[in-house]
């Protein structure tokens, strides 16, 4: 305390001040405000998980459907006699569309990112990245409609079958997840320490050798993170897929035959079923499966990020 007193007595400019009351108040206001935001988020997440789980689990508890039947059953006839709830075709549909979409979009996205960061860094990042990110802003119903009007007739003319199906769904999804994969890959490649590349060039490696020997292996976990995030977006996309996939509750015999995904069957039937009925509860169970899958995707991303840091 004396110290302060001396400084003030000495008629000098008041350089070191006591933490004023205002600052203490600001500190507390900031702390309480951020804590409330976090609390709000946590409560929301818990509430959603609880809500979906309570509805989704009542299929097994109240309606007496066994978990095994739901996960491995091949027949979905919720309004039939007897009602059957086999969701395997939907699980298969969701996985195959999002995997196929990732297979199409991953090479495209990663190569676009390499072009924008390694080959043409200036114009690439300034003009091309905004264009690709624009894809993320297009509403999914527009994707669905374009898919239905362009991709489905095209597939129908080229391949045998109805045009509608897994292939159409995967193509639409691959365009939708392209911005996610490209943006994350671009950021990862741009964040690569320049010393690595310069070292490689100094050793006499060509630009292409540097890219596939040094740049790609080093950024691989980050690139995979982008692909997994893209897949999880594809997994959760409902509207665009529902419009082009056909929605038959069966595992398709070809890429061009009507099938369903978890999301498409939920959006198709949710509004038409009575809350609390077995059919409605079964849809909530599907939502629960989706939620569980999303958590798994998040864990994979976390795991990849940890490896990335090492």
């Amino acid at each position, binding site marked *: 305390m004396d110290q302060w007193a001396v400084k003030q007595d000495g008629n000098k400019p008041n350089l070191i001040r006591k933490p004023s009351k205002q600052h203490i108040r600001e500190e507390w206001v900031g702390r309480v405000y951020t804590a409330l935001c976090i609390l709000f988020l946590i409560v929301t997440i818990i509430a959603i998980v609880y809500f979906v789980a309570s509805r989704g689990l009542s299929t097994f508890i109240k309606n007496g459907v066994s978990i095994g039947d739901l996960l491995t059953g091949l027949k979905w006839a919720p309004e039939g006699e007897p009602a059957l709830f086999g969701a395997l075709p939907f699980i298969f549909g969701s996985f195959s569309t999002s995997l196929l979409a990732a297979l199409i979009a991953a090479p495209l996205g990663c190569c676009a990112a390499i072009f924008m960061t390694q080959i043409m860094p200036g114009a690439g990042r300034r003009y091309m990245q905004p264009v690709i990110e624009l894809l993320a802003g297009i509403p999914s119903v527009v994707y669905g409609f374009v898919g239905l009007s362009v991709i489905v007739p095209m597939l129908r003319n080229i391949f045998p079958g109805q045009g509608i199906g897994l292939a159409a769904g995967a193509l639409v999804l691959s365009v939708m997840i392209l911005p996610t994969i490209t943006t994350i890959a671009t950021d990862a490649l741009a964040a690569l320490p320049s010393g690595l590349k310069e070292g490689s060039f100094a050793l006499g490696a060509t630009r292409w050798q540097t890219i596939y020997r040094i740049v790609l292996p080093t950024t691989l976990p980050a690139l995979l993170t982008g692909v997994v995030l893209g897949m999880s977006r594809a997994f959760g996309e409902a509207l665009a897929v529902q419009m082009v996939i056909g929605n038959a509750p069966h595992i398709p015999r070809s890429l061009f035959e009507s099938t369903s995904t978890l999301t498409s069957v939920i959006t198709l039937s949710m509004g038409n079923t*009575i809350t609390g009925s077995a059919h409605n509860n079964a849809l909530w169970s599907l939502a629960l499966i989706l939620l569980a899958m999303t958590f798994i995707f998040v864990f994979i991303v976390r795991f990849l990020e940890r490896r990335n840091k090492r």
Partner: protein
Amino acid sequence: MKKMLLVAVALMLTIGLAACGSSKENGTNNTGTNEGAQTNNSQGGGGNSGGKELSGSILAVGSTALQPLVDQVSKKFMEENAKVNILVQGGGSGTGLTQVSDGQAQIGNSDIFAEEKFTDDDAPKAKELVDHQVAVVAMATVVNKDITVDSLTKDQLVQIFTGKVTNWKEVGGPDEKITIVNRPASSGTRKTFEKYALGTKTEDLQGAIQEDSSGTVKKLVTETPGAIGYLAFSYLDDSVKTMKYDGVEAKEETVIDGSYPVWAYQHMYTKGEPDAAMKAFLDYMVSDSVQNADVVELGYIPVNKMQVTRDVEGNVTKK
């Protein structure tokens, strides 16, 4: 000071949001508290006005097939009754019936009888609801234009929709694979079609397409060779070929005289008897000025023109 004010406002907003959030999470239904308040409001208003000037707010939720009609009529009704506020939402027949039964909405719009939706344990819920039939929607079987067949019998339709017949040549058409464009199993349109055109429930077949909007069904039937589907009369035009059913042409006159059977009432359900404002609105829906204008204009068939009536079991009686 300005900063402090900003922080305080932000804080208040967050708390406000959080409060909203938690109240939503407490109730199982996302609009529970709101709608409850509205019910009270409308009932109170109706009682006080004594029938002279109507007031209150009405929420009508449900069938997307009926939504355009209710929406258009409600606007006209609100012009004449400034103190009545009517909100019309879609969401499907199931949503409409659930919400009116739970008291979240005052009117539940439905394509099918409540008794058909509330089955088994839920059956008592249907008894509390009062049915108001406001229009008739008829459906026609449609096929892609490359099909040369003009008429299908009930048996042929059943065979096609159960997968026993998979090629058009088996019913007298060209040698072409049949692609079924169906509606989802829970849809009211499909239930109507199955009940009155096929007389049996059908399963979702391998390779059959299901779409939940009439627009998409029409687009797919128009474009896919060998496609068959069904559409409400208001969607019919030259882009698809309309089939006769058992030799009877699908048009308004044959529906009205009862010879064409594939039609359903459009229902507006209230829980118990409606209050003054609701009753006035429902009466307005079936008045001649609406039935002969808006109903026809939007492609429905006026309910009071029908020469036959039908009950839940499907028994048809001449008026």
